[in-house]
């Protein structure tokens, strides 16, 4: 009901007709389908199938909850790439509730949400951005007088599937970093009985969401996922294995400070803390802002934002090894290791010397001549 587009998709109109009325040609539409086929990794041969599915598409109803979050993910998704995919996505789906984008507010939209949920019970797609705070009975996030947990549970009960969009909905993100004062958790920690797809990232790249929706419409199910519940077409490979700076890694060419010669030459950011070797994300391929660039491309090490608990496990962001329980391993471990190694060397030397001297003293006091070891003494004396 609340469409940001000026051209509403009227009942009975096919999607293609609707696109035409919006000035999107058949050719552009096919290009979009082809691009989606590529992003999904199913090959351009699948393009007609996607087009067909779209033409016959019954608009899926989507409820979008924003819980404990910063709206950054919404921003990211609305900036998806051409052909005006953000618009297209919002045209293809019937976005029945999204409290930031909606024109209305207050009791009226809450009522509309209830109506949409009961009309499409068991069929709508639930998109969630934001985490669920559990401490103090969840009072850290209250929407329309009800806690995030209640709102989520209610919406999830009638959903066909859930898209947990962004690091907050995935596992809690920055508010769940130690010591997690609000007890923030992700959707998967609250909802156990629905298929949940984690679109990881802080924020995720919008194209992943678009492609996921396209997959859902084309095949009627969610795409295949990895152990973290992230779609494999996007999160199936490490940044490090797709990185444009990888040749410098293999060559042994590393940036040491952000203003050195290596930095100017675009060398590998491994030594300044790049988490690409530990991060599964499509950043190097999909890139950001209409494929303009991406963090490593722009000279900044990857922070590892698509991995769970990255605020704790990937910090310090400019160091290679993480702190363990607040202890700076990177800075100290090698120093301590070296000190222990030197200590052990000194220790064994001292032990050896002490053994020799106690033996000499013992033999002197028992007046034994070393060359004639007596029989009552132990053989190894």
């Amino acid at each position: 009901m609340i469409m940001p587009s000026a051209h509403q998709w009227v009942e009975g109109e096919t999607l293609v007709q609707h696109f035409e009325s919006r000035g999107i040609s058949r050719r552009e539409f096919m290009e979009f389908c082809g691009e989606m086929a590529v992003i999904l990794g199913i090959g351009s041969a699948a393009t007609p199938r996607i087009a067909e599915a779209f033409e016959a598409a019954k608009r899926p109803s989507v409820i979008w909850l924003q819980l404990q979050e910063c709206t950054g993910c919404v921003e990211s998704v609305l900036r998806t790439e051409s052909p005006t995919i953000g618009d297209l996505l919002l045209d293809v789906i019937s976005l029945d509730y999204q409290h930031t984008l909606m024109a209305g507010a207050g009791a009226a939209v809450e009522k509309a949400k209830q109506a949409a949920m009961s009309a499409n019970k068991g069929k709508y797609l639930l998109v969630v951005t934001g985490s669920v705070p559990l401490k103090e009975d969840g009072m850290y996030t209250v929407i329309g007088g009800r806690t995030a947990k209640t709102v989520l549970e209610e919406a999830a009960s009638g959903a066909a599937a859930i898209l947990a969009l962004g690091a907050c909905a995935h596992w809690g993100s920055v508010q769940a970093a130690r010591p997690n004062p609000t007890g923030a958790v992700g959707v998967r920690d609250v909802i156990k009985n629905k298929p949940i797809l984690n679109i990881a990232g802080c924020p995720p790249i919008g194209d992943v969401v678009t492609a996921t929706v396209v997959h859902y419409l084309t095949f009627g199910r969610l795409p295949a996922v990895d152990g973290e519940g992230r779609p494999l077409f996007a999160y199936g490979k490490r940044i490090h294995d797709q990185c444009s700076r990888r040749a410098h890694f293999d060559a042994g060419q590393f940036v040491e400070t952000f203003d050195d010669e290596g930095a100017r030459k675009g060398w590998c950011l491994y030594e300044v803390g790049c988490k690409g070797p530990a991060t599964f994300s499509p950043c190097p391929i999909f890139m950001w802002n209409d494929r303009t660039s991406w963090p490593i491309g722009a000279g900044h090490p990857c922070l590892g934002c698509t991995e769970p608990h990255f605020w704790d496990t990937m910090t310090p962001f400019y160091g290679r090894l993480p702190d363990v329980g607040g202890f700076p391993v990177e800075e100290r471990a090698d120093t301590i290791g070296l000190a222990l190694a030197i200590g052990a060397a000194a220790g064994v030397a001292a032990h050896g010397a002490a053994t020799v001297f106690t033996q000499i003293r013992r033999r002197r006091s028992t007046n034994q001549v070393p060359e004639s070891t007596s029989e009552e003494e132990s053989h190894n004396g």
Partner: protein
Amino acid sequence: MTTRVGALGGARDLFGRVQRVFARERGNFTWVYLWSAPIRAMHWIAAACILSLIATGFYIARPYFATSGEASAHFLMGRVRFVHFAAAAVLVMTGIVRAYWLMVGNQFERLPALFPVTGKNISNLVKTAGSYLTFRPDKQPNFVGHNPMQQWSYTAVYAMAVVTVVTGFTLYGQSAPGSVIFRAFSWLPPLLGGLQGIRVIHHLMTWAFILFIEMHVYFAIRSDYVERAGVVSSIITGGRYISIDHSYEDYDIAKVPSHPWPTGEYRAPGKSE
């Protein structure tokens, strides 16, 4: 006796003294066979692997050499990683040999030798530790094979190797998601704070190995010198001489002549074969 002067002379004097203190004792000796050829081979191959894994691992952790010019002209990190992974593969093979020998080896090589848990063993462990701490090798219980302290430290180093190999292969599998190695270890990162947790453990284990090697080398040489136990030569030739005038905690010397060494390697000194 000539009087030696100068630092070198002093050092030689000291060395001579030490040698006389631990002079070879006299009596009747017999040669016992302890370590089968595969165990000895495995020991030295694993040692070489671990040393090269430490050297290459430190380069991976902190690439101190840099190359300049075109990236296409170099493959330094690539090569170092290749050596690391090749040595890792060989280390795993030595581990397989060792695991097999835990089942088919002799008394000193079998699995129970790694876990000296009986009461007598514990009391010998305490006695051995006491003798090390008070610098009294003469108070040490006699063993033909390893004393309980050595046994436990070798059990520990096998455990360290398992941890390092498992964390290493977990990291290794990441470049090929879906591969057998990746899937075999995919359960691990979530338990240990993700891949970065795995990396830290792998890194710290390197220091644990360095500490182990220092102490291992010292104690081995020390037993050779102080206990005249011949352990260094035993891991080269397979056996050592033991005095037949003493009793051993892990070996019934009285039975030796009538019960030759299981592998038939028993040779009594002075008797022709």
